């Protein structure tokens, strides 16, 4: 379970996030939806502890990210917006590096890597250097890297960026599988269809605030719009006066 309570963050004079609270539950996929610059990334970065909030707190499985950073992080897998690999290392070495830094023992790491290679369909390129990987192969390795320590919670920042249809479908199946295993999945996106198709719960963020926090179905019903996209625009319009 990932919990944000009253998070706020400012960069200089810009208030990127103001008082954001929501809960992403285990066994659910939670989507953070927002326009570019709405504060999605800042919010996620506070949740996985690379940014320190100016106010409020973030916790993973009720472990405070600020107080017990290392312990909280061990419960969390992160796929950041920029999920680059080490080009001179093979896919396996990339995954092993992160696994061993997570403190995993060698034999456990081996079996877990083999399992992920099978699930994600990476067996054909496990021993190749990451330099020449396609975007799809790269995202798979980055995802395996985030999941190697078998975390109960996964945060993904715009994971579908730059992926082709096949790769997006793969990723979607992957996220559904993680949900089926009872994990808590939290991802950000600005693509409506993606969120509508996948999420049990949608948190809409605009100008650093939570504008809506409900199931996609109920957001749509409440606004009376036919699609989530229209509902989204309506929700934004309420606060910004966009016609």
């Amino acid at each position, binding site marked *: 379970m990932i919990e944000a309570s009253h998070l706020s963050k400012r960069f200089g004079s810009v208030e990127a996030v103001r008082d954001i609270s929501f809960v992403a539950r285990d066994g659910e996929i939670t989507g953070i939806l927002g326009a570019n610059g709405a504060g999605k990334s800042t919010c996620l970065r506070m949740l996985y502890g690379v940014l320190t909030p100016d106010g409020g707190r973030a916790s993973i499985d009720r472990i405070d990210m600020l107080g017990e950073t290392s312990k909280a992080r061990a419960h969390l897998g992160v796929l950041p917006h*920029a999920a680059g690999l080490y080009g001179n290392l093979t896919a396996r070495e990339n995954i092993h590096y992160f696994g061993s830094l997570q403190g995993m023992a060698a034999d456990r790491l081996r079996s877990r890597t083999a399992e992920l290679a099978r699930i994600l369909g990476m067996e054909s390129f496990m021993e190749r250097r990451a330099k020449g990987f396609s975007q799809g192969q790269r995202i798979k390795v980055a995802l395996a890297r*985030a999941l190697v320590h078998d975390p109960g919670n996964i945060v993904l920042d715009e994971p579908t960026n730059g992926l082709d249809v096949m790769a997006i479908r793969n990723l979607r199946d992957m996220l559904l599988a993680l949900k089926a295993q009872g994990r808590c999945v939290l991802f950000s996106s600005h693509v409506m269809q993606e969120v509508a198709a996948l999420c049990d719960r949608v948190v809409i963020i605009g100008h650093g605030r939570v504008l809506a926090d409900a199931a996609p179905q109920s957001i749509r019903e409440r606004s009376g719009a036919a699609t989530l996209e229209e509902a989204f625009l309506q929700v934004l319009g309420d606060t910004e006066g966009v016609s």
Partner: protein
Amino acid sequence: MRALFIVFCKEFLENLRDRRTLVSALLFGPLFGPVLFGLMVSRMLNQTVVESDEPLRLTISGGEHAPGLTRFLQAQGVKLIVAKLTEQEARAAVRGGRAQVVLIIPDEYAPRFIAAMPAPVLLVADSADSQTRKVADRARLILGSYASGIAQLRLQARGVSPLLAVPVAVNELDVATPTGRAVVVLGFMTYFVLFAVLMGGLYLAIDSTAGERERGSLEALLSLPVARSSLVGGKILATCAYMCISLGLSLTAFVCVFRFVPLERLGMSANLGAGTALTFFAICLPFVPLGAALMTFVASFTRSYREAQTYLTAVLLVPTLPIAFASIYSLRTQSSLMLIPSLSQHLLMTSVLKDEPIAVLDVCVSAAASLTVALALMVLTARHWRRETMLG
């Protein structure tokens, strides 16, 4: 500690597979100095040897007015090129490089010589050209010895002891030992050694910081449950390892080069064998973590490979500054200077080259000072890595 070791192993392995790192750390850095050095010293040697062996070539005009002088010059082994030049023509010939040095003997030479009056000769040379300046010096020396020989004969003919004309006898004593003389030539070799150290870690320092950011792997790394100081420590340690390899290669190359450069022919002996190389390695070892921490620190502030390269190239020059100061003020080894990293290593290495005894205390102070600065830089780097701005 475990995390630090994991980071170290990964950085070491990853860069071992990177051609750019290998070329700069294990080829260019360590070999640049010794090769350049070997070439320069052998060229210098050849020049000196050739110059003193080769007969002096002198263009002479009006030699018929001074048969005695002409014979003397020939007896001294001077190759005379007879020409008929006026002063103007001689000037043009020297300036145009057609003649190195021209000796003009005017018509009035003979009558004045016979009358025992100062007989004029004109030596035309270009003192701005280091090559012909040496030729002119030699010509002047030979002319001088002819003149003093004639003077002695004249005094003797008049019944005066020629010794009266030598009121002071100047004796010179050159205290430079053969090794000491070599040190002048070898002085800047120490810089190449320090250069090799820094060059060895250059690309690793860039790759493990700015490279990590440019590849987009930094944020994932920073979100791991690992202390930032372990990350920084592992990266600096890997940089140190490459610097040590580069230092070792560089010293080996120097030892090899000096085996082939015939320094003895210049009356020098360079005290650089395997033993000296090991001493150098020990002296430079504390400079390694300093260089690694400095480069990692600077590179941590940059956003891209390119930017890091720009700043770190400047860092490569940092060790030259104290060394340059030392040679301008001709500083000698003293304990207070041991507090300045790079200068202390330079002075200690120079002392070893000169075969001078070095104080254990000096070595300890030099090491302690370098390691203290290194530690301070490491702490600063780790602190910077804990900042949010690290994400970029």
